[in-house]
């Protein structure tokens, strides 16, 4: 109760429209934090990621239409939808691979028209890829270590000479890798060449690499695609454990609805580029629009959603 009134007071004191910051940004000042953003952040301290009215079209094909979405700190947030619904486009907008035609992306208190991909890691965002982006020729350990590649490292000469500073950084990095590797039960395979592992394990290595830098927000691109049923269960356990242990906020897009419903705190559903539903798994499961989108007409024996 008290928190709501506090927020209301902030709003009243500001006497500026809350989306003032948004307009400033959409006037094209790329990655400069917008005016009014600090105040907006005060409104929504627990929001890690906010998408506001994102639209994206490729020529005549509309991939995303006016999609808004927010991701609160520490939650597991899923985006589901049929093929071609715009899930991947949305993820690519969040990670800066696509620039939306309209709308704004906000990480914590920084607002962007287009997300600067190279600085993503610095903003505490990590991602995995649907078809994996592992170094298949390097060991598991080295793969995970590369998850820290973006960090400021000791100078080149210092590395060669092995100065105390370089050694300390090195030791810290190695400790971080060891922790994540054992946390995800990869210790047995830490020296194996990543490309020789089963697909499900490779996915776990990629998860480890994304987690090692302790991101605030972790983007998972179809994490369960192409893995076996038992691997799916394991992997979803690991995702949940990662959230519980490191407090990482997780945004995932996924096909496997049954799994997502069990794993996520909130689920948004996309269809033809529009958001047609957003809520807890139970709300989404009961939503008639969602059922129609997935199944056309809902037959009794086809209620995959209800599992």
């Amino acid at each position, binding site marked *: 109760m008290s928190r709501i009134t506090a927020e209301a007071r902030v709003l009243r004191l500001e006497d500026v429209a809350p989306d003032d910051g948004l307009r400033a940004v959409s006037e094209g000042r790329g990655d400069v934090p917008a005016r009014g953003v600090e105040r907006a952040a005060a409104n929504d301290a627990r929001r890690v990621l906010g998408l506001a009215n994102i639209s994206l079209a490729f020529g005549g094909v509309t991939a995303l239409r006016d999609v808004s979405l927010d991701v609160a700190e520490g939650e597991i947030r899923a985006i589901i939808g049929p093929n071609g619904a715009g899930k991947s486009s949305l993820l690519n907008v969040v990670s800066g691979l696509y620039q939306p035609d309209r709308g704004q992306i906000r990480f914590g208190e920084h607002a962007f028209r287009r997300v600067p991909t190279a600085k993503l890691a610095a903003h505490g965002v990590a991602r995995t890829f649907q078809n994996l982006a592992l170094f298949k020729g390097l060991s598991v350990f080295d793969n995970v*270590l590369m998850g820290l590649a973006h960090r400021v490292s000791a100078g080149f000469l210092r590395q060669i000479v092995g100065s105390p500073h370089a050694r300390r950084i090195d030791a810290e990095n190695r400790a971080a890798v060891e922790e994540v590797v054992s946390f995800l039960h990869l210790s047995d395979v830490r020296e194996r060449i990543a490309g020789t592992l089963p697909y499900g394990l490779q996915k776990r290595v990629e998860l480890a690499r994304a987690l090692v830098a302790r991101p605030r927000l972790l983007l998972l691109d179809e994490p369960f695609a192409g893995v076996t049923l038992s691997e799916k269960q394991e992997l979803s356990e690991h995702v949940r454990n990662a959230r519980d242990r490191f407090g990482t906020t997780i945004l995932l897009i996924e096909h496997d609805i049954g799994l997502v419903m069990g794993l996520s705190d909130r689920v948004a559903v996309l269809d033809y580029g529009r958001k047609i539903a957003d809520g807890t798994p139970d709300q989404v499961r009961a939503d008639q629009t969602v059922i129609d989108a997935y199944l056309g007409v809902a037959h009794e024996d086809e209620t995959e959603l209800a599992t």
Partner: protein
Amino acid sequence: MFDYQFLLEVLIGGLLSGVMYSLVAIGFVLIYKTSGVLNFAQGAMLLFAALTFVSLVERGTSFVVALAATLAVMIALGIAVERAVLRPLVNQPPITLFMATLGLSYIIEGAAQLLWGTQVHGLDIGVSDIPFDVGGVFISRFDLFAAAVAGSLVALFTLFFRYTRTGLSFRAVADDQFAALAVGLRLPRVWAAVWTAAGIVALVAGLLWGARLGVQFSLSLVVLKALPVLVLGGFDSIAGAIVGGLLIGATEKLAEVYVGPLFGGGIEAWAAYVVALALLLVRPSGLFGQKLVERV
């Protein structure tokens, strides 16, 4: 009676000169591994380094200062190549990049001669070529020195690749560029570093080859000798470049001495290519090269 001592002498001479081939080949491997570009300009870089060094020394610069200055020039060259050639051509097909390095090789050669002239220079790096007598087998002191230098360079690179973070970045970029981008590695920076490293290798190779052959235009043709080494060892393996170099060096000398007379001599110049061609038919990716396995 077969003269085993002579055989041994020829073999050792061949292996030691093979080390010199390896040295050139390693320059290729470094760049090929990390950027998928067959850098045809490696020979020109070698010439450029040797010519710069020798010209500085002839103008009265001390050995150490000239070495440091040449090193600085090679580093600048590496960074300039990344800026001016690689960066604008990023994501172009390999053949485009290859053509670019071909053009680059002529530009570097031209620049070297414009800057330092076209005369032949003698280069004395202070190692006399008096043979050692080891149990009746004569071994060239210079060859031994060259092999030691090449060996320590390789050892340094190996340690560097294995134990430093920059080395790990090199290996990562060589392994998968997309994944490297995904974890936020700055590819331009890595490429500049790799070209710098290749420049350092070119400097060392240039000095050794220059001392052997004299510093002159034809030094840039040493690359042609490195090609069979690469075919043999695989384009993406430093170990392969070393073994390939040794094999080619030994084969060349042995062929010249024992098979040469059958053809009236002079086969040293092309025996290596025959070996490389034969191997290509059997193992297209070389002895150590990564075999590409693709799902069909």
